[in-house]
């Protein structure tokens, strides 16, 4: 009896392992394909007749960074640098905005606070790019379209609306701490900088990482703002341009290499962020 139960369990676990292995392969194989073919040394058309490349070389990566490929407007290093600059600036501005707003919503009690929160939530529900045309003309009126400044503004302007998660985190910090500090004569400003922020490392790191990753993964906004100014492209729209019918034959392998180059750092950052996300959210979001 006991034996058969054990046998059954082993059988069940065996099936589960089999299932997980098969699914794991399905899930990862596109990325393995991406990685392998970014090292493809074959010179050929778009349709690769072989699942596994016959020749291996670094040529795609070298081409990617030296700009070989016949078209000077496809400048991957430039795109990478653009994205990095935009990401740094918008990261700083967004993080500050988010933390300020969520602290105010979480710890300060003022008139019409609830109204602000509700309005913030409603604004977040509009399809973001619905307003893009208006933003485009606003930026044009300021003479900023097709510039990196415009991108920074767009990525960080609405950041304050993303207060939910960090507000949830701040909510969990006992208010007794604030009260004690107030009795000791601390102002709200001092409480924010000296008590709340040092206690909120996971959520600060999480906010920094998400706002840094944002510009690397965004697609629509950058496309609308940059239009045909290829010098100002970010990696995302640049890579999409490479898969465009006019360039695909020439640039398909560089597209794969370029995807790997951007995917690796972002993946690592994301995995790092994941840890903080789990920490921050299990502390702050359990009530959800």
């Amino acid at each position: 009896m006991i034996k058969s139960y054990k046998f059954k369990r082993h059988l069940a676990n065996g099936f589960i392992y089999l299932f997980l292995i098969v699914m794991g392969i399905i899930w990862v194989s596109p990325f393995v394909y991406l990685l392998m073919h970014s090292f493809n040394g074959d010179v050929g058309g778009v349709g690769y007749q072989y699942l596994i490349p016959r020749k291996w070389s670094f040529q795609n990566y070298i081409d990617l960074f030296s700009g070989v490929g016949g078209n000077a407007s496809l400048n991957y290093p430039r795109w990478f640098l653009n994205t990095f600059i935009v990401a740094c600036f918008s990261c700083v501005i967004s993080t500050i905005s988010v933390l300020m707003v969520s602290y105010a919503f979480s710890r300060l009690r003022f008139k019409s606070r609830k109204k602000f929160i509700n309005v913030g939530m409603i604004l977040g529900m509009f399809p973001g790019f619905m307003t893009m045309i208006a933003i485009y003309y606003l930026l044009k009126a300021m003479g900023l379209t097709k510039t990196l400044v415009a991108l920074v503004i767009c990525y960080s302007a609405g950041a304050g609306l993303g207060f939910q998660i960090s507000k949830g985190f701040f909510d969990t910090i006992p208010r007794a701490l604030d009260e004690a500090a107030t009795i000791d004569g601390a102002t709200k400003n001092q409480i924010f900088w000296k008590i709340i922020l040092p206690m909120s490392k996971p959520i600060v790191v999480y906010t920094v990482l998400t706002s840094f990753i944002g510009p690397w993964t965004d697609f629509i906004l950058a496309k609308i703002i940059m239009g045909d100014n290829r010098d100002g492209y970010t990696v995302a729209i640049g890579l999409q341009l490479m898969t465009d019918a006019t360039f695909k034959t020439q640039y398909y392998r560089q597209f794969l290499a370029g995807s790997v180059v951007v995917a690796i750092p972002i993946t690592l950052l994301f995995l790092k962020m994941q840890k903080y996300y789990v920490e921050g959210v299990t502390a702050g979001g359990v009530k959800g």
Partner: protein
Amino acid sequence: MTYVEYRQLNPFQRFAFNFKKFISNVPHAVANFFKAIGRGIVKFFVGIGKGFYNYGTTFVKGDWATKLSYLIFGVGDFSKGKYYKGILFFLVEVLYILYMVFFGWTYLKDFTTLGTIPKHTEPDGIFEKIVYGDNSMLILLYSVLTIVITIVVFAIYIVNTKDAYKMQLLRAEGKKPTSLKTDIKDFMDGKYHITLMSFPVLMIGIFNILPLIFMILIAFTSYDYQHMPPGTLFTWVGLDNFASLFDVVNNSTRARTFIELTEWTLVWAVIATFSNYILGMIFALMINKKGIRLKALWRTLFVITIAVPQFVSLLLMNQMLQSNGAINILLSYITGQNVEIQFFNASPLLARVTVCVVNCWVGIPYTILSMSGILMNIPEDLYESARIDGAGPVKTFTKITLPYMVFVTTPQLITQFVGNINNFNVIYLLSNGAPTTHKFYQAGYTDLLVTWLFKLTMDKQDYNLAAAIGILVFIVCATLSLIIFNNSKSMKDEEAFS
């Protein structure tokens, strides 16, 4: 049902009870939602009435400086020795008047017509020259800007009159106004929320609210590819754009597109949400089953899909699913024949199925992640007592694990549903709406309402129609979300932990 009765139920019955309560609560929640809106409107007008009353009484009771503040900003503050505030108020007024005279009014005066002088030619010596008339787009944009600025300045004006009266009362009590230094200190403490919020609110105002108002207004104009400023003017058309979307009687292309895409969007949202949810739950249960090793490895394998930027994985998938892409090559290897399946461009059904399947690949890891956290949180003693009572693995699953997970994740499920209605990336980067058809107006079979909106703006420049669709999508999503959020625990017991 009393608490004791509730405790006597088994977990499954409890879940059924809670679920019933949740469902039966929905009409109530909807009613509450509209009641709240109604109350808000009433409150708003009462507030305005009160404001006018205060405005009047303050004027009657005010001294000369307070009375003068009704005309010239800041006089009240200035005359009572609060110089910096008086000067600031005065500056606001001067700047506003300059703005209105030199910029704002030139646009605002045409707001009702959106311009009357079209592009035309004028004799220029023996030749003719092109003269650009009014630009409806700029008139609308800058009118909105001017209206927003006017509202803000009006609010400052009201604050100014109140402040003048407050200073007057202070003077009557024989007190001195606070100095600049104490005021600044106050902004670091008592009024710290103003310090914190003003910058983000300003940015949101300029780059979210202003454009939003503009786009909402666009939905009521004729701003489309036939009316493109500065060449041609556009004007107000009332509800015509909405009417054209619901014009089923004449079976117009737009109405047909709208209705079919709405159907598909809803079908897509249901399938995408539930397939991810159910499959993700199965995956999570397997990974977290007792006796399965290498849990971290399995989890990481799936999380990679989330970690890689979506545009990379989706563009890659798009390329792999082309007729000469990797998937077809793989199929050719397996079958030994030359397979060239057109995943996106052949049949609508195949394209839709493909999109849903790939969405599973993208979405299941998210579910695994959140479910794993919840599974680990189920109290161990629940299982233990079930085992002592003689429950087998199947029974513990259906009576403990499943009800627990479904109950905890229901709000998340609805948030995901709303997210899927707006799931731009998956459709745009993967199929781009293909297969295209002439049956639809500027859309393909896999287009969602949001991608259709995007195409209308970017490719066709039918801004009015796009704006109308945006408003409709927003109404659906916002109603759903507000009902959920206002009924979820996190809004109610905001301070449960502090």
